[in-house]
């Protein structure tokens, strides 16, 4: 680490860094870059819509631009900017030296950059994706989307998804294993807590997207049958799968913002957060509920009254924990001594804007209203109020709050106020009128519209607002660059804040802390500055000894397994859904399988789990265990061999991935399983290498990999039962 930080080469220091602070800053700059691109796309959209019948953009161009605007803002701006702040501040807030896996952390960032560039490369490769950011089937079929845009969309999201899940695992392991002494789970700053819970959402929701887009790619490139009704698949199943990811995704974009607000409002009101336990607990409730409301994006698809009622109920329920937070934030301000720096201005505005977005969301839960206003500009208004007025306002607040810590300089308050007012006025001008546009019948995703009374005027107001927002972005960027050079020196704690990141220099040294203050509550620096009235006199946060730090390798493997379990569940569900759709080709494919032979290979795979267990047991007793490890690898390889023989047999019988629904889901499910077996063999081989060469960490690594191997075997037992034995 020292050689790197002292290297004279600026480029080398930044591209080879494993320091979470530098990686966080890389995320922030890169998301700012993509914010510029997404913002230009937004300006083009608004200019095109300023007058009816406008010819600035052809429909083909417009459809690519709105698709890229949504995809860019969600995956290349909002998610990375939140991850960037988390990267920088979660380790600091818990008093740690870095993330649990610095190399994995760096890889996540470079996957983000690569994924973003890959997506944009599509512009040069025949056209960007143009099927909307949620790519509904069957519009995404090659017959309707013949350019490679959708394929680029799929591939870049896969790349980005791997990076996000890695970060999720990294954050969870960091928080559970690297907290400083005295920093128990109950004393975590709310930003750390919210991102910790958010990390679980990421780890469990992204695999659903990965499974969906993998199936989409197989449909498009291998002519398979998952989602295209003309081939027997189901377009509705695509929607179910996508929104099973998509709804938790919007909470992935909201929870960290809630965490930021929970840091900013207390500091600038000079009071602790009101109702910490309720804010923390309601976050868990939101995370759990977020997996149960996905079909509220599908109320207009004819799923039936009972189905709609259940999801309407869940969607209303999830408003309660969110509302609780709003009241607690206001109660924090109540009785305080509020300083309205730019950071606090944005946090205050957040309260108003997010409530507007949240309430319009509740309106959507009233199903008949949804039937009128979904897919209109009313929903465009809703999403921008929660994502821009909500999340992005919180991000701006966090930027003004934490910029001094990251750079050692203050952002200009004068420019900040200009930025703030231009944003607030511009934002509301752009999006408030869109509620009305939706209510008078303007559908979304249209490159032009008829000259109906009122439509042109409202669209023009909206476009004017967009120009104000453009100006505010210029002010922000100017403020950033100017302050980096000429900003007032910040010192350690310019805001007199109370969490651990302020107990070190600005910016912090490479090892983060020279010395940590004692941690006996949620606000260590408050306790230090106010020994006569420490928080512990008024609120109980438990003892410093509770919340043990967990062991890294098994925890990491468990999280990875949880993520992969979701991935397999998605593929298994797809398999089950499609095998119930009978077609003769499917029955032929099914009868071409040989359960007896596959049963033998299944036994071999189970045996390999046994030999692996023997290997670990032997090592615990001091024996080398390498023989049993080798046996495991051999048995695993034999299993793969058996799989290959089966595939060859099927292909010779003309059962290919595109023969039938059954064949499509069969090859996908067993193919991905085989891929996991293969990766497992590689991992076991690496462990073997580490053990033979007596490198450190070999045993610990094997502990994690063996959990993974057992998992892969259990998945196979489930697959075998469902695919081969069920009929």
């Amino acid at each position, binding site marked *: 680490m020292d050689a790197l930080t002292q290297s004279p080469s600026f480029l080398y220091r930044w591209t080879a860094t494993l320091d979470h602070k530098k990686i966080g800053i890389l995320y922030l700059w890169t998301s700012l870059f993509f914010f510029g691109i997404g913002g230009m796309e937004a300006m083009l959209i608004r200019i095109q819509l300023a007058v009816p019948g406008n010819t600035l953009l052809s429909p*083909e161009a417009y459809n690519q631009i709105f698709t890229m605007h949504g995809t860019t803002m969600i995956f290349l701006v909002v998610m990375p900017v939140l991850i960037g702040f988390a990267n920088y501040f979660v380790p600091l807030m818990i008093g740690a030296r870095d993330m649990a896996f610095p190399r994995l952390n760096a890889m996540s960032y470079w996957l983000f950059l690569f994924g973003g560039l890959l997506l944009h490369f599509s512009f040069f490769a025949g056209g960007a994706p143009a099927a909307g950011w949620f790519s509904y089937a069957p519009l995404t079929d090659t017959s309707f989307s013949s350019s490679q845009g959708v394929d680029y969309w799929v591939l870049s999201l896969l790349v980005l998804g791997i990076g996000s899940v890695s970060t999720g695992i990294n954050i969870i392991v960091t928080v559970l294993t690297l907290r400083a002494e005295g920093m128990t789970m109950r004393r975590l700053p709310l930003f750390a807590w919210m991102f910790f819970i958010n990390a679980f959402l990421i780890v469990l929701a992204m695999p659903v997207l990965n499974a969906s887009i993998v199936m989409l790619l197989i449909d498009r490139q291998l002519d398979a049958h998952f989602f295209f009704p003309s081939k027997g698949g189901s377009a509705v199943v695509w929607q179910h799968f996508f929104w099973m990811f998509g709804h938790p995704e919007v909470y992935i974009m909201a929870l960290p913002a809630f965490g930021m607000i929970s840091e900013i409002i207390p500091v600038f009101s000079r009071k602790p957060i009101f109702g910490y336990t309720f804010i923390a607990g309601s976050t868990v409730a939101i995370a759990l509920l977020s997996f149960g409301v996905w079909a509220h994006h599908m109320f207009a698809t004819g799923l039936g009254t009972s189905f709609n009622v259940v999801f309407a109920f869940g969607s209303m329920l999830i408003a309660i924990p969110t509302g609780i937070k709003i009241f607690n934030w206001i109660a924090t301000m*109540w009785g305080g001594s509020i300083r309205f720096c730019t950071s606090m201005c944005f946090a205050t505005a957040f309260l108003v804007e997010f409530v507007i977005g949240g309430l319009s969301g509740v309106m959507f839960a009233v199903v*008949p209203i949804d039937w009128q206003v979904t897919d209109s500009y009313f929903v465009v208004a809703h999403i921008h109020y929660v994502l821009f007025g909500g999340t992005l306002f919180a991000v701006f607040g966090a930027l003004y709050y934490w910029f001094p810590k990251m750079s050692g300089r203050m952002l200009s308050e004068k420019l900040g106020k200009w930025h703030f007012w231009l944003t607030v006025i511009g934002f509301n001008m752009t999006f408030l009128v869109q509620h009305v546009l939706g209510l008078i019948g303007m559908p979304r995703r249209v490159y032009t519209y008829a000259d109906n009374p009122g439509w042109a005027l409202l669209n023009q107001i909206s476009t004017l607002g967009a120009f104000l927002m453009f100006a505010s972005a210029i002010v922000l960027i100017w403020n950033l660059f100017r302050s980096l050079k000429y900003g007032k020196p910040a010192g350690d704690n310019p805001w007199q804040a109370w969490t651990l990141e302020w107990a070190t220099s600005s910016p912090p040294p490479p090892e983060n802390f020279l010395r940590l203050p004692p941690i006996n509550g949620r606000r260590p620096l408050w306790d230090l500055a106010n020994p006569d009235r420490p928080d512990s006199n008024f609120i109980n946060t438990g003892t410093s000894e509770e919340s043990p730090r967990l062991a890294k390798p098994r925890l990491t493997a468990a999280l990875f397994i949880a993520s992969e379990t979701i991935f397999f569940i998605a593929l298994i569900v797809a398999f089950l859904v499609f095998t119930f759709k009978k077609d003769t080709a499917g029955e032929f494919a099914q009868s071409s399988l040989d359960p007896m032979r596959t049963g033998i290979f299944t036994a071999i795979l189970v045996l390999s789990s046994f030999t692996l267990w023997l290997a670990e047991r032997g090592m615990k007793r001091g024996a080398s265990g390498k023989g049993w490890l080798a046996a495991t690898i051999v048995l695993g390889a034999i299993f793969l061999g058996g799989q290959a023989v089966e595939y060859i047999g099927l292909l010779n019988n003309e059962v290919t991935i595109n023969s039938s629904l059954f064949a499509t889901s069969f090859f996908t499910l067993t193919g991905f399983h085989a891929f996991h077996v293969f990766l497992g063999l590689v991992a076991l081989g690496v462990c073997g290498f580490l053990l033979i060469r007596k490198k450190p960490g070999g045993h610990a690594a094997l502990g994690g990999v063996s959990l993974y191997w057992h998992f892969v075997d259990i998945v196979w037992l489930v697959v075998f039962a469902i695919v081969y034995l069920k009929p």
Partner: protein
Amino acid sequence: MDCAGYNQPMLLASNSIQAAEVNTLFIWVTATCGSIFLIIGIGVIFCTRRFAAKPGETEEPHQTYGDRRLEWIWTIIPCLILIALGIATVRGMTRVLPERGTGKPDLIVTGHQWWWSIEYPEHGVITANEFLIPVGKKTLIDLESADVIHSFWPPDLCPKQDMIPGHPSHLWIEPTKTGTYIGVCAEFCGTQHANMRFEIRVVPQAEFDQWIAEQKKPASPSTTSKGAELFNSLACADCHRINGTSAAGVTAPDLTHFASRSRLASGTIPNTRENIERWLRDPDSIKPGSHMPDYKLSEEDITALTDYLSTLK
């Protein structure tokens, strides 16, 4: 694009039982949510005024950490509000979109890229983009799609339902006021999603019956006209159907009573001679990306075809 002759979609119009039900619900829900917003907004603004730090203030205010009772209050009250909304929701759903039942539909509307085909199965009538329904009668519409997902949305008459290929859905409309109502496609369906409009005319039963009788009649133009010959020789007939001739294509709008429609290209431009000629000359200039091929017709052929099409009343 001009829209003379249309009832424009109006905020809170209620020209049918279904639209009226939604609008009543909408007013109540907006009032509720609006009140909640006002309370919160006033609370926030009050805090910014009353608790702003005085200039030069250095003393820390009284530190409060929470209040169990308050938490219960502001959890229970929203719960009660949501229960009320939930009840209204279920009631509204059963009134606006009851289950389909097993009856035969009055209409089958199929979405295509980028036009609408309408069939009255009971009468054996097929048409495209513009159609009539009788006032005061509960009409069952089955919705399907021929290609990608579309969504049938006449905002003044009823809320939308998506048209998903392989997954039929339905709508009920019981109009209470006569008039002409536009509808749009509300699910992004490709290049010309923006120009996929339809028109519903709500008329008294007698007028509806008369229109159906007219629609049932096959086209009776002169089959020896040059335009008619061109229609068949140029393969127009492969895509377009004209009842009473050999033209029986189903991948493009039915043209049997084309001349009785008010607009062209699925609601994009008015149906005038000049516009028909513009369309035939260069479809892409009006609806770029539409599936209508450009046959590079000569002006003569264009005139002949337009003459023929204008006779298809």
